[in-house]
């Protein structure tokens, strides 16, 4: 039906005024109502639900953060006291350092590796292209919980595969969740395993948007593969790379499940808080200790501001570095 009609000359949006008759008039009014108001009905579900369960809680987080707020009991307005308390809170700084440490150990190798793999997948007449793409992406399909459980065993002290392999090169058993550097490395490896393939695909998509004749022209001019990568691929990939860096930053700053499960469900992340992240600290203050919910809300806003700052910083840095 629609095919033959589609070729007809476009009709005006509203039908012409009806030639009288109550029934036609009613029909016309209904059409007008339909045209004017139905769009609002279609977008309403999003705004209603997001407003109630997305936007409102965010605003309320800001309000709570200005209070000494007990989730079950009393609430007193204290202004910015929660935020000044953050500045001298050792556990907060510890969580901040841990978050940044794990973030650096995961994001940097991950993006370099993704860049390398994407370049391999892009620059070649490859057999089994789909197989390789699917294989490197599949870690992203598994739940974080499953990843953390499996890696938890790989890093187990006495029978874990990682320590067993390290034994061959003469390295003694490492107590992976007992020290700062080792727990950061273990947690970062889970993040790397899960996200390298995803980033590879995004970077690959960006690379494929680069016109191929640029490479061919460079080849004729005698530029080698390495030079082509530096002079063509990297500069033209900049927008995609900024996107990937910011996405990794947002994810890295919110890291929660991997360290939580690595600590067997302990919200403080190791005996000495060796790997408690900011998101875990927020959870501890806001949802485990219900009487400090206002302080937890302040941590949430601090976390949000750190994410914003980090994204901005990365944006500027990546732009400048690629110039």
């Amino acid at each position, binding site marked *: 039906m629609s095919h033959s009609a589609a070729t007809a000359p476009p009709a005006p949006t509203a039908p012409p005024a009806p030639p009288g008759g109550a029934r036609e008039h009613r029909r016309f009014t209904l059409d007008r109502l339909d045209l004017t108001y139905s769009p609002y009905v*279609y*977008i309403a579900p999003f705004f209603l639900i997001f407003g109630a*369960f997305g936007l409102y809680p965010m605003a309320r987080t800001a309000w*709570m953060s200005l209070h000494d707020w007990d989730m079950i009991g009393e609430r007193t307005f204290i202004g910015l006291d929660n935020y000044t308390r953050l500045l001298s809170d050792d556990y907060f700084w510890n969580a901040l350092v841990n978050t940044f440490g794990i973030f650096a150990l995961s994001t940097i190798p991950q993006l370099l590796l993704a860049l390398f793999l994407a370049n391999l997948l892009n620059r070649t007449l490859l057999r089994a292209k789909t197989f390789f793409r*699917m294989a490197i992406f599949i870690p992203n399909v598994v739940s974080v919980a499953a990843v953390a459980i499996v890696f938890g065993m790989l890093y187990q002290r006495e029978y874990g595969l990682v320590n067993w392999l390290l034994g061959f090169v003469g390295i003694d058993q490492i107590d992976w969740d007992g020290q700062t550097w080792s727990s950061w490395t273990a947690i970062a490896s889970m993040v790397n395993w899960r996200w390298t393939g995803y980033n590879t695909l995004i970077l690959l998509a960006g690379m494929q948007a680069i016109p191929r004749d640029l490479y061919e022209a460079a080849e004729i001019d005698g530029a080698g593969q390495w030079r082509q990568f530096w002079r063509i691929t990297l500069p033209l990939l900049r927008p995609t790379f900024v996107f990937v860096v910011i996405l990794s930053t947002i994810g890295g700053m*919110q890291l929660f499940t991997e360290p939580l499960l690595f600590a*067997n469900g302990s919200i403080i992340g190791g005996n000495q808080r060796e790997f408690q992240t900011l998101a875990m600290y927020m959870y501890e203050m806001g949802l485990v200790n219900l009487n400090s919910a206002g302080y937890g809300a302040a941590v949430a806003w601090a976390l949000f501001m750190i994410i914003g700052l980090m994204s901005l910083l990365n944006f500027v840095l990546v732009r400048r570095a690629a110039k």
Partner: protein
Amino acid sequence: MISASQRLWRTSPLTYTALVLAALLSIYPFYYMVVIGTRSLDSINDVPPPVAPGGAFTDNFSRVLDNDAANFLTGMMNSIIVSSVVTASVVLTGSLAGFAFAKLRFRGRNILLLSIIVTMMIPTQLGLIPLWGMMQTLGWYDTLYAVTVPFLVSAFGVFMMRQYASQAISDELIEAGRVDGASTLRIYWNIVLPALRPAAGVLALLTFMESWNSFLWPYAVLTPENPTLQVSLSFLSYAYYTDYSQVFAATAVGTLPLVLVFLLFGRQIIGGIMEGAVKS
């Protein structure tokens, strides 16, 4: 004869070696999950570690089912229900709103669309603590409402559907529907929704995976008695971490549905992710 461009894109054996290595590293933890999940508990502490699957899966998995503390079957059922409802709703509300933003004229359209895009950048963790309090007030704590209702819509879903609708559906097609006297809702159902099917399929897959795998929020509002699958796995692993065979058998079963979905639709999922990346 090799042409110039073929020479340029030639693949060296080193490339294959690197890619095969990356593929093996990606797949290995799944394989490991299956190896441990199908072995008896005492063979796990063997040195060297076992490398091939064993025959103890039924035994291990029956321990999971007998385990009252994990509520594995409840978790599985809950995850199926929640993920299905969330997926259906996100696709429906996303395509409705996406159609409106792409093809209908109304006041405030641009500013409303912009506000949706802005909300995509705010992390959900920001509202976590008050949302938890809201669930208590509403009496939804430890019910499936708490893990379903807040996720019935998605800004990403609206945006993705809007992008696809504006390029895949011609204005003439919609006008033709109007000339035939169809209401806007009818046009959506008979013309727009069928045309959106490829993108809606990708959105459905991505939403289902995300919902199935979500952890932080279900962990915050559900108890071990009424968990989703991921929450059940986490409690299982805390309490029975020495019984690796049991934990891994459960983890493998909980991961299997998504791996199957991925093997069936991986091409579309990857296509959707790569396409989305270029446009944003």
